[in-house]
């Protein structure tokens, strides 16, 4: 059985109690350790960790990142704060009832983005197949055809985890398996600073006792329907033949039949350049009047401008998206003579498109976006009449 020292990334004898190379006791042992190559890496309490990194005085204090005040929610709670109960997405007032001594810090997205891109560039030194899920998590394909350094994926991951700690100053949890679903499940099992492995031999048995919501694709609504039919654990789904799952879940049933046995065909897809950026809003009550729709659009155009500026991107085509009250989606587009980042110009085109559609139909959603992206440097060339 293979054994890896997580501190010095050396392979050692499986029966050693500590690393024969560096003496560390942080060892990971698994029979399939050297055969697995799909990883999920998740930063531990990312936003809070970045804040602690930048202000060591916070190190031993409970830290909550989120907007303070009445309606704010918790974005991230550090591990000290979590001991008292606060969790992500919890209303701030409730978090502070549970942990009144917490230090609340408003999010500084620019800082987190910077740390995230630093982490991503470390990942990219190991493999081009890095699929970011959000600022603080990503999938990596380290199989022989993808990795840039010819070492076992487990070794590369131990080195990466250490490099992120050293160079970025935050800790990560690593999940290693043979597909994305199980890699993610693995990284969730051991946090913070974890290194968890799920092999082929154990997958079915490991999944069996877990709740159905463990399965990628089963959300709260599906879980509720399953519970009504008396199905709560993955084991019960494992016992159902593929036909029965298909009959119950349609197309998803076939994927499900594989997932419950730990089979996931999704590949790790490298981060592609942004193809479009858009924002949208769903009305609390359907809207049909042009002024109400236009007002919503104006608000969205302002938000889109901010998104574009933050991403240093511009778009050359404006896309208006509408969804009618009977869930019919439509999109209309308008080409600009040059790429733009300007909300007012995007709005002008959006309103013109909206004018043709706002014919009394009720809409439940409106959105605006741009595609045909260009770098910010190519946006909005100076204008003779606006100089």
């Amino acid at each position: 059985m293979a054994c890896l020292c997580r501190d010095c990334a050396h392979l050692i004898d499986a029966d050693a109690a500590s690393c024969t190379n560096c003496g560390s006791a942080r060892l990971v042992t698994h029979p399939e350790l050297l055969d697995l190559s799909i990883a999920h890496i998740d930063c531990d309490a990312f936003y809070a960790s970045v804040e602690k990194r930048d202000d060591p005085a916070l190190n031993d204090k409970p830290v909550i990142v989120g907007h303070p005040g009445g309606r704010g929610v918790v974005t991230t709670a550090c591990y000290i704060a979590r001991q008292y109960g606060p969790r992500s997405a919890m209303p701030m007032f409730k978090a502070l009832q549970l942990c009144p001594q917490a230090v609340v810090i408003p999010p500084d997205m620019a800082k987190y983005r910077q740390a995230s891109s630093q982490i991503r560039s470390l990942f990219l030194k190991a493999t081009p197949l890095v699929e970011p899920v959000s600022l603080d998590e990503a999938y990596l394909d380290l199989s022989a055809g993808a990795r840039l350094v010819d070492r076992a994926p487990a070794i590369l991951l131990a080195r990466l985890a250490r490099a992120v700690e050293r160079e970025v100053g935050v800790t990560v949890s690593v999940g290693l398996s043979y597909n994305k679903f199980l890699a993610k499940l693995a990284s969730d099992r051991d946090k913070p600073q974890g290194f968890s492995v799920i092999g082929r031999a154990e997958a079915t048995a490991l999944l069996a006792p877990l709740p159905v919501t463990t399965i990628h694709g089963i959300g709260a609504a599906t879980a509720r329907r399953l519970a009504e039919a008396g199905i709560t654990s993955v084991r019960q789904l494992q016992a159902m033949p593929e036909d029965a799952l298909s009959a119950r879940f349609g197309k998803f049933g076939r994927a499900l039949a594989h997932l419950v046995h730990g089979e996931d065909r999704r590949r790790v897809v490298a981060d592609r350049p942004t193809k479009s950026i858009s924002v949208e809003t769903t009305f609390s009550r359907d809207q049909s009047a042009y002024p109400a729709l236009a007002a919503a659009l104006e608000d969205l155009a302002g938000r889109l401008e901010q998104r574009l500026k933050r991403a240093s991107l511009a778009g050359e085509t404006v896309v208006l998206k509408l969804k009618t009250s009977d869930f019919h989606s439509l999109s209309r587009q308008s080409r600009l003579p040059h790429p733009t980042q300007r909300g007012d110009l995007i709005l002008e085109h959006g309103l013109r498109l909206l004018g043709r559609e706002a014919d009394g139909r009720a809409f439940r959603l409106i959105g605006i976006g741009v595609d045909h992206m260009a770098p910010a440097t190519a946006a909005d060339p100076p204008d003779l009449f606006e100089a």
Partner: protein
Amino acid sequence: MKLTIERAALLRSLNHVQSVVERRNTIPILSNVKIEGREGQVSLNATDMDLDIVEAVPADVLRPGATTAPAHTLYEIVRKLPEGSQVELEHTGDDSQLILRSGRSKFTLASLPVDDYPVMSGGDLPFTFTLAADEMKGLIDRTRFAISSEETRYYLNGIYVHAATSGGVPVLRAVATDGHRLARVEVPLPEGAAGMPGVIVPRKTVAELRKLLDETTMEVTVSLSETKIRFAFDDAVMTSKLIDGTFPDYERVIPADNDKVLEVDCRTFSQAVDRVSAISTEKSRAIKLSVDKGSLTLSASSPENGSAVEELEAAYDAGPIEIGFNSRYLLDIMAQIEGDAARFAMADAASPTVVREVTDSSAVYVLMPMRV
């Protein structure tokens, strides 16, 4: 109606009128061309309700009458008939079909009642003047490239034509701009144009007019009011609505005292710009001009492609300047300069630059620099 006409003559006229007809129409009859056979000639009429063209072609009319038929289909058929063939068009009474015969081919086309065909009335056109075809070509060619395609700035979607004075001399001016470049061209004011209102001729009208000009060397009679303009040729008349908008005060963006003056040989300069721009990104097409005493360096760079530098000889006597332009805009202007030398008058990297042909003062081009 029954008539016979030479394929070549019919094709030529259909080519003019069919491009006025939009590809997609919500009003069916607007997809059609109106065909009217009279004594010795057939007249073809097409409209999109904003632009109307009537063209007369000699034909052997056996039985006068009128009908309408799908313009693009008819054009496609005639285009595919063999060269030198004769085409017979026949339409009987209120029959809903137009029959086209040529050689051993026979086509039956759905027609719509001629009485439903929209008539675009010119209304009263109080100003009338004539321009030589070449003069009108010059006004169009040297300005149309600068017309804006941005629909939200509809008032820039055409050429602004108006009477003005230039150095005390009355002139007829054509101006077009998209906000990034501007072209202003003038000819001596023709008789009858004094006091005419400034009008914005839509892009599509400009394009159709230009096609007709290609086939004539004669004079064109222009009649206009504040809302419509008409161009009359020997055998064709085009009537167009004008853009209902206010053209911006363009004079204020033409700098008068830019003192950094650069003279270049047009051909050499264009070729160098074309080469160097091969490296600039497709989206921005930016190219940098670095000018110092007696020398001009063109450069471009892009993260994906690399960089390019080319040095040129140039007459320049002012302080050093670095300024960026859209290379396509530079080439557009150079393409309109017929002489050997072009003169750039610059102020700084953020202010409009004036470009002229050294030996011709009738055209002025203004370029807004880019950030490079």
